[in-house]
C-alpha cells in the first residue's frame, strides 16, 4: 500500500512540474549549503588529523607571546638560545630544537622577490626538526653541519616561476645580498607557506640577518608519549622560573599539536555553525514553501480526496498520501541539493588546490552524509506537510465531493 502512495506522490509531483520545481528550489538551496559545509568541514578535520599524525603526538611547541602590563609595554619577549638550553634540561624530554624565521629579499639573476627563510640547526636538532616539519628531500641532499652558504628550497621554486625561471639544483641565488647555492629540493607538502620557503643553516642565518640570539619556535620531543600534559606543565614551570615571570603571566606558550590544530578546529567550528545557522533558515523557508504548496494541493484536490474517501480511503490513508507527497518533494529537492552541495565542495577543493595551493581543504564524501541528507530532507518535507495533510484527512467526504 505504501508503495502505491509513493507512486501516487511521484505521479502528482511530475504532473505539476513547474510548481514542484519551484517548491524544491527552497529545499535544495538549504540542503546544498548544509551538505557542502559538512563535506568541507569533515574534509578539513581529516586533513588536520593527517597533519597531526605527521607531526606526531610526542611533540610540544613553544613560542613567545606578548607580556602583560599597560598598553604599549607588552612587547614580545623573544625566546633565546638560553631558553632552548634550559628546556633541554627538563626531565622527561628526549630532545629540543629551535628555528628562526626571516622574511627576506631573494634574488636570482635579475629577478627579485620576497620569501620566508627558515633556519636549520645542526646534528640531532636537525633530525628532530626534519621529523616534526616533515622535511623530506626530493632532489639533491639535505643540509650538513659543514654547510655554510647552501640552501634547500621548497618545491614551489621548481614547479612555478617564482623567481622568473624555475630554479634547479646548483643554481645560485642571493639572500639578503649574500650568495647561496641550492643543494636540495623538498618534497611537496601542499602547504603554500612551506612549499615557497627557503631553508639555510642556522649559523649562516644568524650571521646574514644579524640575529645572534633569538629563536622563534622551539620544538620539544618527549621521551614518553603518555604524559604529554605533565611534560607540558614541567616545561612551562621550568621555563617560567628561568625567564623569571609569575604564574599565569607567562610570556610564552607551550602547546601540544592537539592544541595547535585544535585552535584551527575551533575557528572552523564557529564558522561552520554560523553558516549552518543560515542554511537552517533557508531550510525553514523551504519547508514553509512546501507547506504552502501542500495547502494549495489540498484545496485543489478536495474533490479527489472526497472520491478516495467514497471508495474506502480512511483518514490515515489520506494523511499518509499527503505526507508522503510532501516528504518526497523534500527528498527530491534534497537529492538535487546533495548533488549541488558535493559539487560545491569539490569545486572549493579544486580552487584551494590549484589557486591557493593548499591541501588542507578537501571535500569529504560518505554515504552516511548522502543518505542522511536525503532522509533529513524527506523529514523536513513530511514535517511541513503534516498540517496540510491533517487538513486533507479531516475533510468530510460528502462536503469534499460537493467541492467544485
Amino acid at each position: 500500500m505504501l508503495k502505491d502512495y509513493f507512486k501516487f506522490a511521484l505521479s502528482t509531483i511530475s504532473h505539476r512540474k513547474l510548481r514542484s520545481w519551484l517548491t524544491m528550489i527552497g529545499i535544495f538551496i538549504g540542503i546544498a549549503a548544509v551538505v557542502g559545509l559538512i563535506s568541507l568541514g569533515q574534509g578539513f578535520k581529516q586533513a588536520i588529523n593527517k597533519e597531526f599524525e605527521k607531526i606526531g603526538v610526542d611533540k610540544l611547541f613553544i613560542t613567545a607571546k606578548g607580556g602583560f602590563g599597560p598598553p604599549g609595554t607588552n612587547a614580545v619577549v623573544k625566546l633565546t638560545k638560553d631558553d632552548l638550553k634550559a628546556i633541554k634540561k627538563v626531565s622527561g624530554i628526549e630532545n629540543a630544537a629551535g628555528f628562526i624565521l626571516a622574511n627576506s629579499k631573494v634574488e636570482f639573476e635579475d629577478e627579485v622577490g620576497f620569501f620566508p627563510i627558515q633556519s636549520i640547526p645542526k646534528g640531532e636538532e636537525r633530525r628532530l626538526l626534519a621529523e616534526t616539519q616533515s622535511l623530506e628531500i626530493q632532489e639533491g641532499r639535505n643540509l650538513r653541519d659543514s654547510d655554510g652558504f647552501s640552501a634547500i628550497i621548497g618545491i614551489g621554486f621548481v614547479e612555478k616561476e617564482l623567481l622568473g625561471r624555475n630554479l634547479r639544483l646548483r643554481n645560485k641565488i642571493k639572500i639578503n645580498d649574500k650568495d647561496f647555492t641550492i643543494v636540495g629540493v623538498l618534497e611537496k607538502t601542499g602547504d603554500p607557506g612551506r612549499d615557497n620557503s627557503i631553508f639555510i643553516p642556522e649559523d649562516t642565518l644568524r650571521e646574514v640577518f644579524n640575529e645572534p640570539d633569538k629563536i622563534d619556535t622551539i620544538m620539544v620531543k618527549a621521551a614518553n608519549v603518555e604524559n604529554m600534559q605533565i611534560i607540558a606543565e614541567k616545561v612551562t614551570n621550568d621555563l617560567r622560573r628561568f625567564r623569571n615571570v609569575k604564574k599565569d603571566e607567562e610570556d610564552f606558550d607551550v602547546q601540544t599539536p592537539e592544541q595547535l590544530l585544535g585552535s584551527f578546529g575551533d575557528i572552523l567550528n564557529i564558522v561552520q555553525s554560523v553558516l549552518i545557522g543560515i542554511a537552517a533558515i533557508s531550510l525553514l523557508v523551504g519547508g514553509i514553501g512546501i507547506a504552502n504548496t501542500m495547502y494549495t494541493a489540498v484545496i485543489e484536490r478536495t474533490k479527489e480526496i472526497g472520491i478516495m474517501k467514497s471508495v474506502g480511503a480512511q483518514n490515515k490513508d489520506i494523511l499518509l498520501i499527503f505526507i508522503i507527497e510532501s516528504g518526497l518533494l523534500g527528498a527530491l529537492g534534497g537529492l538535487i541539493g546533495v548533488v549541488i552541495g558535493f559539487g560545491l565542495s569539490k569545486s572549493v577543493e579544486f580552487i584551494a588546490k590549484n589557486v591557493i595551493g593548499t591541501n588542507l581543504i578537501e571535500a569529504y564524501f560518505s554515504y552516511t552524509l548522502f543518505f542522511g541528507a536525503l532522509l533529513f530532507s524527506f523529514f523536513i518535507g513530511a514535517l511541513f506537510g503534516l498540517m496540510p495533510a491533517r487538513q486533507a484527512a479531516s475533510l468530510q467526504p460528502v462536503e469534499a465531493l460537493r467541492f467544485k
Partner: protein
Amino acid sequence: MKRSIIKLENVWKTYKMGDVEVNALQGLNLNINEGEFVAIMGPSGSGKSTAVNMIGCLDVPTKGKITLEQHDISKLSESELAQIRGRKIGFIFQQFNLIPTMTALENVMLPMIFQGLNEEKRTERAIKLLELVELGDRINHKPTELSGGQQQRVAIARALANNPEVVIADEPTGNLDSKTGTNVLDFLQKLHKKENKTIVMVTHDANLSRVAERIEFLKDGIIVKSLDNER
C-alpha cells in the same frame, strides 16, 4: 421473505447554514432488501442525495438509526465508515468522479488499493471489470480521453471493484445524452439481474425509474409514496 440489507429508522439530518438550520431529512423510514433495485425520486431539495449518502455510509444522521446487515452504523467513526464503504458499497455519481490524473485502469484499481489487494490481483480484476463494461481496449486512457458514457462505465467498473453488496447510483445518467444514458442503465440492470446486486438509484427522470422494482417518492425529507413496479 427477503433479508433486509439497509434499514433507515426515523432518520433526521440537520444542516446549519449560518444561523439557519435546515432539515434535509425529517424522520425518514426506508428499508432495502438484498437483491432489490430501488429508485428514489423526488424534486430537487427533497433530500434524495442526503438519503442516498446515508445509505452509502458517506454521512451519519443527526438523529435516528441506520442498520447495515444488522449492525448499527449511525454512531461509527469516519474511518470505520470508510472501511464499510470500501468493502460493501459501490458508488456511481452524476459527475462520474474519476480521478483525472489516473488512467481508467488506475481508477478502477483505486478502491482495491485501500483494501490492501496486491498489484497482480487488482490489475487482473480491474482489467476483467473494464472488459465487463466493454472498455477492454481503453484501459490506459485518461478520463479526458474518454467520452461521457465511457467515463461513466469506468465509474461502474470502479464501483464493482471490491465486489460490494450495494451499488449506489446518484443520477447516473444526469450528465449523459439519452442514448448513452440508456446504455449505462442497461449495465445497471445487467448487474442487478445477472450478479444479483442490490441497487439504489437516485433520479428525477420518471422514465429511468421504470427499470427499478420499487420507486420511493421523497418530499421534504420523508417518503411520501412507495410504488412497486409491475413487470
